[in-house]
């Protein structure tokens, strides 16, 4: 038993690692304490068949609009519901930039999506712009899905610098021009798993998918940490 400090609430807590974990270097230090982790809501039960929004009996209103805007249907699945806890988590992870939080949901993501990811022909994380990489120093998506590091291809899809989407209002985000572009044609004819941190409006993932479909991708499904 080791004493750790939760990276979110700052409380100390006992890590559940056994002696053998320590001996063989298997212990992965959980960056969150269990009270914090118990605050997050896992997506279960009925969901919107397109975006994966929880507590939705049928296609949600947002997705009805998406279906009219694009000539493809995106299937997104998420681990967690995007609530106030996850907002705090993403703030600390992305904007404060505590890269140690990347492993907070690693095993849960692997458990739920590991199979889907390993069966995909191509795994692409939603990219961050050069400016963001310069300031933040990491791509939050590749961090969260680092268990699939070997399978992930970060050299296909790119995004141009512009005002950060998270600083724009909802209307601006829905209307902004597609900033995604491709650096390689490796996506042609492939089944792709597209990874993101949070599905909020759906704009980011629809634009990224549109960019890949236009280039000739066969089928794209998306996975996000939260919806």
């Amino acid at each position, binding site marked *: 038993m080791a004493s750790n400090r939760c990276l979110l609430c700052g409380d100390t807590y006992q890590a559940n690692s056994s002696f053998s974990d320590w001996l063989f270097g298997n212990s992965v230090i959980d960056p969150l304490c269990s009270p914090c982790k118990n605050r997050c809501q896992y997506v279960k039960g009925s969901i919107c068949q397109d975006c994966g929004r929880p507590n939705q009996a049928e296609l949600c209103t947002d997705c009805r609009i998406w279906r009219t805007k694009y000539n493809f249907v995106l299937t997104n699945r998420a681990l967690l519901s995007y609530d106030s806890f996850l907002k705090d988590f993403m703030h600390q992870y992305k904007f*404060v*930039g*505590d*890269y*140690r939080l990347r492993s907070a949901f690693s095993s849960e993501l692997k458990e739920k999506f590991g199979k889907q990811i390993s069966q995909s022909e191509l795994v692409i994380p939603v990219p961050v712009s050069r400016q963001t990489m*310069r*300031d933040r*120093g*990491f*791509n939050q998506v590749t961090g969260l899905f680092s268990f699939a590091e070997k399978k992930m291809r970060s050299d296909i899809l790119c995004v141009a610098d512009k005002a950060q989407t998270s600083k724009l209002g909802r209307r601006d985000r829905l209307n902004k021009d597609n900033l995604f572009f491709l650096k390689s044609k490796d996506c042609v004819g492939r089944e792709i798993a597209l990874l993101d941190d949070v599905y909020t409006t759906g704009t980011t993932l629809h634009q990224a998918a549109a960019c890949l479909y236009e280039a000739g991708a066969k089928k794209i499904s998306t996975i996000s940490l939260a919806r």
Partner: protein
Amino acid sequence: MSTAFFCVLKIVTDISDYYGRLCLKSRFDSAEDAKIQVLPPFDKQGHCYRCGQKNHADLPNGEFFCTVCLQMGRNSSLACFHWAQEPAADARNGQSWLTWQGTLTNKQQQVASEIIESIDSGQDRLVWAVTGAGKTEMIFPAINHALKQGKRVAMVSPRIDVILELAPRLRSAFSDLDLLLLYGDTPEKYHYTKLVLATTHQLLKFKEAFDLLIIDEVDSFPFRGDPMLAFAAEKAKKHQSSTVYLTATPTAQLIKDYRQQRLPASFLPLRFHGHLLPVLTFTRIGDWHKQLTKGRLPKKLVDQILLYAGSGQRFLLFLPRVKDLAPVLKAISKITDIKGLAVHAADPQRKEKVQQMRDKSVQFLVTTTILERGVTFPGIDVLILGADDEIFSTNAIVQIAGRVGRNNDRPTGLVLAFIEEQTRALKAAAAQIVFMNRKGQAQRDGQ
């Protein structure tokens, strides 16, 4: 209103924002003014330039960040600091800024003069004033003295509640002066002021900024024993400067520095009303934890509470741990029907409950060390159950005892510690109170 409007208009960087202040920038940002120096994020040994600690976490591509001062904005190998040297002090015709109309007692006046001497000779000073001595007013002349010479002053405390309580008092004492209040969730945007009131954490963002640094409640959490905050306080002042430590309970290190004549000290051993401190009294009890698991309290404590139930005397009951609060409150309710509440640090109703005690709608509070300082309930007694628990440091005990006898109407009162055994911390606390009372007595006899 007009100042807020002005701040919105002020978009262009003002060089004064950089005076003595470490502004976190990307390493690709270029300095906008010739006076700005670009400083590295880490020193050659890898210590964070802002907090002085060496605790890194990795980022991709061999980059890394400091985990210790993360909440002040992430300092990483991708960053740098922009900083400009504080301009030399310019005396504004020696004009006084002090608008405070009150008067100091002779003794307070003497301490004020001693602080001013320290400022003029560039020395540090310990001001050891008993709880309830009126430290704040005594510091006003010293602040004014430094401001008159065009010096920059910071008054800081580890405790945010202390800072928030000081702010209106300082603002009214220096009503013509722009004063900046800085703390974690501070609503104010930073701008240059000659007088800064802040939590000790905020000192991390300063470098060679202050001529006079006043640290209030220097012995309290989290400043005490935190190497990062000690580093911050050292770094925030100019090479030629004075630090004044204000406290009722100096740390062992400060006392040592004073005894070995490295740190001059001023004493205020008497409270503003001129009475001595209530002394610590002890009474032995058995294994009270065991009794509590059966829903019972020690006989001696029960007797004391029944006495209060009869007399209506108001009191605080301090306990070592939060988990004991509810069982103790329940056990009290079994023996008497007087009204009381339990309060702890994370209690969402903490403010309201303390207010209820102030309003006298309850007769007592059961609490932890969270109420050890900063709160004043007139005319109370204090009981400490399990005072021999390691959680009660010498300072905590002295502070807790200092809750008693705060007003003129009832300048004395009972401080009773229920213990299984004597501890070194308790003995030291009792000795400290006796030491200050001896000084106080000497002062009273002399006058």
